[in-house]
């Protein structure tokens, strides 16, 4: 483990922030771009995970374990969110025979 963690020594904190910002933006793009409800959901997962990575990087940088505990809570929350969200998607499919989100445009008004 020593040799593995020593590889990280020279990576600046900025580069972790860049990586997380880019992946978060890809998630935002996925939400805007696709019409399949499940893929929109997966883009949200991508955003959650980029934030998790950033929290872990800051936790290691500051030497504070609270950040990693917070990531654990976010993972529990994501599991709950996925369970409810996929149940809603299944119900939408059962009622409209499609998971295209444009079918639900009446929710706008």
């Amino acid at each position: 483990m020593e040799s593995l963690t020593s590889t990280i020594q020279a990576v600046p904190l900025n580069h972790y922030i860049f990586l997380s910002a880019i992946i978060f933006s890809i998630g935002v793009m996925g939400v805007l771009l696709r019409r399949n409800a499940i893929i929109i959901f997966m883009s949200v997962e991508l955003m959650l995970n980029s934030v998790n990575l950033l929290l872990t990087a800051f936790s290691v940088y500051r030497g504070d374990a609270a950040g990693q505990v917070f990531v654990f809570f976010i993972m529990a929350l994501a599991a709950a969110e996925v369970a409810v969200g996929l149940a809603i998607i299944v119900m939408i499919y059962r009622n409209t025979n499609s998971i295209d989100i444009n079918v639900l445009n009446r929710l706008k008004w």
Partner: protein
Amino acid sequence: MSTFYFIAFLSIFFSILVISAKNPVHSILYLVLTFFTFTIHYILLNAQFLAVVNFIVYMGAILVLFLYTLMLINLNKEAEPVKPFMVKISAVFGGGILAVALVSSLKSLGVSDPVVLKDPNLGLVKNLGKVLFNEFLLPFEISSVLLLSAMVGAVLLATKEKEPKATI
């Protein structure tokens, strides 16, 4: 050091494939690969507990749930309707603007200190368990209630409504 950049490149590459793959099943498989690269990031940061939890909970449970749902509702009949070209362009433009704004505002800070692991026991289960069950005991218990209510809600939402029985 170069390991980090290689894995970071793979993360970005696979996450672009997630949102651009035509077939939703391929999209989920690329998401599995993306999460695997995140696990490697956690191992590089010596956050071993998070690496294992990410591996088991995200790749093992959540993505399998996605895959099951996708196979439950078969989308083989017709492909996903494509958005108009202008909407696509503006979506990519909007996301790109967000990325450029974040990255360029960070660029002005200059190169920060390197991430150095001061305490090698930081991400181990022993240390995290002590923090979790001392300082964060109440949020931990509340999250169990959250999971329970989510489970009940999911079951309620997904069950079919029965035909109301005729009262005798």
